[in-house]
């Protein structure tokens, strides 16, 4: 098992291993293995396409949590310049699970805010697996208000299993911190663009996700509850997570179809991490397009549009 590949990717991992083995042999000897390598590479590409063309919702949710997936600070590094991280909520602490600061994208200054996961065990624990506490949300709110004061657009990158369910988080008002952000973002006088880059975990994701243009990466998810959590409650069996994932409709294309998001950004074959350069290019283009669109609108009509979009959320019958 190659830990850099998910279960359903193992056939691709096996082929890739064989290819690199052949390459090494080719270097060592006079054998001409080029044809064979080319044949296997074509096969690997085909296999990737066929596996990824029919991913289940549950497989997509594993992709969204892929350990090699780019995180917020990777996007900052690849898409932006002049990043200055701003810390702390001015009330209690700095939360490393949610980062933010000023940066330039294509020369244009903005406020970027996002959940941050860790790569290795130590960083994962420091970043609390990307699960913010109230001070994280309050920092985000502070940075958004700063952005609005200086008429800078806000870009939020969403990637969290959810807000942290811990005793300290409850003591300091996790509910209030999330609610306050929803309230502030609904009416924040500057454009807000949001992009789900990995896991859009419920209220913890929405707390930085109220926006004028909501995008999702092809292999990201956005859900009211994790498939495991939903399965445990409604099926009374966490092993039914694949069924729950399907029923919840957590994938980008499905949510686009339902009118809940504005745009799906495609990813390279096999996911963002398999071809970072190409991926970053298309994300950058999408962000710039969204910024152009929202910044072109007069502020009053932008805010009115944001409000009406929020009011239109929901499906019900009116028998009047």
């Amino acid at each position, binding site marked *: 098992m190659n830990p850099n590949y998910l279960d359903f990717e193992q056939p691709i991992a096996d082929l890739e291993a064989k290819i690199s083995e052949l390459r090494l042999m080719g270097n060592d000897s006079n054998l001409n293995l080029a044809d064979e390598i080319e044949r296997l590479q074509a096969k690997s590409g085909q296999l990737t396409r066929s596996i990824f063309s029919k991913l289940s919702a549950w497989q997509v949710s594993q992709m969204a949590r892929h350990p090699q997936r780019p995180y917020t600070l990777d996007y900052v590094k690849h898409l932006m310049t002049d990043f200055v991280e701003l810390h702390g909520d001015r009330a209690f602490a700095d939360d490393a699970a949610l980062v933010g600061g000023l940066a330039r994208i294509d020369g244009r200054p903005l406020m970027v805010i996002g959940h941050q996961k860790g790569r290795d065990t130590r960083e994962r624990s420091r970043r609390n697996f990307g699960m913010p506490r109230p001070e994280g949300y309050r920092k985000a709110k502070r940075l958004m208000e700063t952005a609005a004061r200086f008429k800078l657009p806000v870009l939020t990158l969403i990637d969290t299993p959810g*807000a*942290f*369910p*811990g*005793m300290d*988080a*409850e*003591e*300091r*008002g*996790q*509910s*209030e911190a*999330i*609610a*306050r952000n*929803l*309230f502030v*973002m*609904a*009416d924040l006088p500057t454009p807000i663009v949001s992009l789900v880059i990995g896991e859009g975990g*419920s*209220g913890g994701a*929405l*707390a930085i*996700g*109220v926006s004028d243009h909501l995008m999702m990466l092809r292999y990201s998810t*956005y*859900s*009211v*509850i994790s498939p495991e959590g*939903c399965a445990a*409650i*409604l*099926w*009374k069996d966490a092993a039914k997570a694949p*069924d*729950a994932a399907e*029923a*919840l*409709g*957590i994938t980008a294309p499905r*949510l686009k179809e*339902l009118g*809940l998001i504005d745009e799906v950004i495609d990813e390279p074959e096999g996911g963002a991490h398999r071809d970072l350069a190409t991926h970053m290019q298309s994300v950058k283009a999408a962000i710039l397009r969204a910024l152009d669109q929202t910044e072109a609108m007069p502020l009053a009509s932008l805010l009115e549009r944001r*409000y009406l979009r*929020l*009011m239109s*959320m*929901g*499906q*019900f*019958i*009116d*028998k*009047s």
Partner: protein
Amino acid sequence: MNWLQKLLPSRIRTEGMVKKTIPEGLWIKCTECAAVLYSSELERNQQVCPKCGHHMRIGIRKRLEHFLDAEPREELATTVEPVDMLKFRDQKKYRDRLLLAQRTTGEKDAFIAIKGRVLGEPLIASGFDFSFMGGSMGSVVGEKFVRAANRALDEKIPLVTFMASGGARMQEALFSLMQMAKTSAVLTRLSKEGVPYIVVLTDPTMGGVSASLAMLGDVQIAEPKALIGFAGPRVIEQTVREVLPEGFQRSEFLLAHGMVDMIVPRLEQRETIANLVSMLKKHPAPDRSALNSAV
């Protein structure tokens, strides 16, 4: 009864067993002090135990019946009904769950709003029906809350909302999550127009409801000993791997941590809220002689 149950003092013994031996509906045992209470007396007392003051859960219609003055009353947004857009199905179909909940509660969904008066103060009183799918918030709850809020805006009268909810309604998937944003957004308008929004947190107020409309009141009131929080106690116990302290996430805990303004017993809420909104609206003090003597 086995030896272990015999050892236990009667009030710790399985509640279900005791309940079954009592004729349905006539006598009710207080879930806290185990006092046996005459059900009509308990009803008059709004489901608050007259012996120990414990607040048992009360349906939203009964609650508003006690809360509002007898006249006038106008129920709002009665035409809004749920629909299973996603054809959601777990072990049961969502459609069937809705039908069952509608049959057992007589409500269309988990939220009602009534325009009326409290001690003469005009206001809109609204709230969650916890017996309807755990008071979960789906599209109908969000829409009815928004309509109640808009009516409050139009008439410049306060909105009072009694919370009682397990959180977002999973069967409506992301639509239910978005109700958090929708309900919070409408409150920005009330705030701007100076229309008071009074929140009463009752047992239980959790998850997505707690993390949106329930925490945005101009005044935050809690009922005694209500469970209020973002994450459920079991989820937190699994995360921290220890048993939570007594009283964790209860109203008194929230008051101590600065998350609510006050704890007000159910029987005093009419007077407290009428007084609060009369001051926020710069009205003369409410006519307290109208307080129901039975209350």
